[in-house]
Each structure stands twice: as structure tokens, then as C-alpha cells.
């Protein structure tokens, strides 16, 4: 499964959104309706799924789906 698909799957599971809403450009707050606790839970979901820890400063920058994918790719977690 591609990195994009894995990230999309986690977002659908945590936020209860429809697959077509989860575009790379989608903003977690305005497009996917995630409040700050939703977003924190989502970060924890990525941490669990990819076996890493994302510190708070970095987490606040991950505001779109694409930015998460990019971040994980930089961490070489796309295999």
C-alpha cells in the first residue's frame, strides 16, 4: 500500500470523513472539520501506525494531508 493510501486510511478512520474528501491539499481544520483535539488524536494515530514520535513543534506544522505525507517521506517511512 502506498504511503498516501495508508495516511488516507488513518484519516478516514479517525475523522470519519469520506475518501473523496481526503485530497493532498485538504486542510485538517477547514476542509476535514478537525478541531485541535481531533488533530492531536490524528498525530497519535500516525505515530502508532508508523512507529515514530512527532514532537509538538513539528506536529503544528502538519496542517494538510500532503504535508503529513511529505513529512513521513522525509523520514524514509514510505517503504
Amino acid at each position, binding site marked *: 500500500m502506498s504511503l498516501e493510501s495508508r495516511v488516507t486510511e488513518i484519516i478516514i478512520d479517525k475523522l470519519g470523513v469520506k475518501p473523496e474528501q481526503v485530497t493532498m491539499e485538504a486542510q485538517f481544520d477547514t476542509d476535514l472539520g478537525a478541531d485541535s*483535539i481531533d488533530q492531536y488524536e490524528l498525530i*497519535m494515530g500516525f505515530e502508532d501506525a508508523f512507529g515514530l514520535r512527532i514532537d509538538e513543534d513539528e506536529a503544528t506544522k502538519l496542517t494538510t494531508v500532503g504535508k503529513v505525507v511529505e513529512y513521513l517521506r522525509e523520514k524514509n517511512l514510505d517503504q
Partner: protein
Amino acid sequence: MAKRVVITGSGIIGPVGKTASENWKNIVSGISGIRTITLVDPENFTSKIAGEVKDFDPLDYLDRKVAKRTDRYTQFAMVAAREAYAESGIENNIHPERIGVIIGSGIGGITTFEHEHKVALERGVNRINPFFCPMMISNIAAGRVGIDVGAKGLNLSTVTACASSGHAIAIAVDMIRLGRVEAILAGGAEAPITLTGVGGFCQLKALSTRNDDPETASRPFDRDRDGFVISEGGAVIVLEELEHAEKRGAKIIAEVSGSGMTCDAFHITAPAEDGEGSARAMKLAMQDAGIKPEDVGYINAHGTSTLLNDINETKAIKTALGEENAMKTPVSSTKSITGHMLGAASAVEVIFTAFALRDGILPPTATLQNPDEGCDLDYVPGTARKADIKHALSNSLGFGGHNVTIALKKYSGK
């Protein structure tokens, strides 16, 4: 003239059905909801039986995001509240700021608590779900129902163990009488069938161990009773000011004519000697409703099937009504069929009592075969009975010595 309060909607999800009418059908027929526990491995419990809500999938009612972020007890409250709210037809007939919510729970989100406690121990406190606190707290059912139906009036929660939803109703009635709001969704919810929930009550020696015969294990007033049967579910009613309800042509189920609330100030779990506190609650409720003991046509007892409750409640009824009236008044415990839904129990039983008044049918103490010595009232044993009654009482008692009695009156039109 003092304001009067009526029930214009009812909702129940519990071990004998997922709607109020399905529940009532099974209650009148005496069809038990008690089975072997499936929600958690019962192997090490002394009591391996319970009244579970069968085949409950929150996604049948709630969207995925809400379902994932609510404890089972909150889900039951939301399901019951939606049913009551829909039946009442009050939506668009009241300003959102003039309808409130009072929903009680004895425990709150114990499933969530256990789950996240395990996470904290096994994986560390920084892996606790960020939604843990707002899922677990025992007031969140009231908050969620407020959001769900858009009720912006007073919103709070009552926590008095097995009397929780009785207090919710009693306080709601008084709030409406005072003119704080015109309507309130009132009731309770509980989902205690977990490792520590059932395990804790087992350790208190409070639960029936009649594991080989679940359907007759809850035997209120019977000489062979050996404890209560733990159950889960939710029950909510729409309480509405009488004139407000009549003006909009609402279908009125029954009137809640009064309440009585007392404390034993005696012991944390045992009822006071001779049910002294409960007797005073019944007297206060009759006084509040403006009725005399001879007017009471039926009492829905707390009737838990524990040794102490049933004998003391019998004595309490005799004290409150006087021996002669007590002997003539039918008393039944629907816990013989539902088991004990703890924080939801009182609201469930107020609904059954309202239906009894509306339909002229007294629900039975279905499992009663051999009344215990000292349990000598008319407990409507075995099968339901037709009786056109005008006034009824519903009793509830909770650990801590909390007693509440709700008085109801048949509604016979404008």
C-alpha cells in the same frame, strides 16, 4: 395556579428492547432480558449473568466520528433521547433555549476508563486517548444529548447511584414548575457490564449467582432471591409544562404529579431499618401530588431482588400507605424482567408506570413464585393484570442512602 408537568415522549433501549414500545410489550408479557454475559469474559465472576442490550451497533444510530468518541453509556442516552424527542414532536414547537436536559448515570464511562487505564499502564500515559476525559465523565451524556437535539436550556447530570435518573426526573419537574424552562429531556443511562463494573458488584455480594437459570435469577420478593442482576441501557422522557403541551396538541402519556426525595443518613449500602427513608420519600411524593394513600392504585417498586431491599421496601410501603391501604395496593418490580439498569433504572420504571396508567395494565413481578416471609403485599406475581388506576408511585433507592419516589397521574384529556 401552580404549573403541572406531563410526559410527552419516551425512549428506552435496554435488555428487553430497543424502543419504549418494544420494551413495554415484553414487560407486559414477562419476557426476560437476562442471559449469560457476553460483553466481557464472565469466567471469574461469581455472577455470570446480566441484562445486555442485544446486538447493539452504535453505527445504526450515530455517525462514525460520534460513535468512536462516546462511551457506550452515552450512546444509550443518545438513542433513548432521540426516540423520546421524536415521539414528543416538540422540535420546532419550542425555542431551543427553553428546553433543557437532565440525564443521570450511576457510574459514567467505565468501559472507556478501563480501556485507557490499560493503555496508560501498558504503553504510557502519553498514549492515553485525547478524548478520554470528555468520553468518561458522567455528565457527558447530558452534554451530548444537548448537542444532538440542539437543546440550549439548563443542562446537568444527577449522580445518585441507582436513583440517578429518578432524581433527574424529580429535579426536571421542579425546574419546569419554577418556570426555568418549558420542557426537559430527563432520564439516565448506564453501561456497567465490564471487568470492574461486574467484578465490583460481585465483590459486594450484591449479585445473583443463579447462573444456570438467568431468566428467573432476578426474583424480587421471593424467598429464593439471592441478589440483583446487573443490566445496562438508557431511558429518557420529554417532560413538558401541561399548558405548553396541550396548546400544541401534543400526545400526553401521563402526568408527573410530584416527587419525594430523602436520605437515610444511615449506611452506605444497606437501607435504613424498616425502609424509614424510603417511606418518607413516598409520603413526600404523595403530599407533593396532593393525594392520599388510598388514592394510590399501583406502586412500581425498587424491588431489586436483594435480601435487604425487598423486605425493607415492603415495610416502607406499609409505613407510607398504612397497613390496610398497603395490603390493598398492587406493587410490582419490573426488575424481575429487565434486571437492574442502575442509573437508568428509575427512568425506565417511571416510563413503565406511565404506560400502566395510560393502558390500564399493571406489569407483573414475573418471576415471583414463593413470596418471602414478611413479603406479604400484592406483588402482581407471574402475569400482568388489567386495572384502571388514576395514581401511581415509582420508588428508587441508591447506594449512599438516596431515596426518590416519583408520583404519576393518569392523563384523561383537557
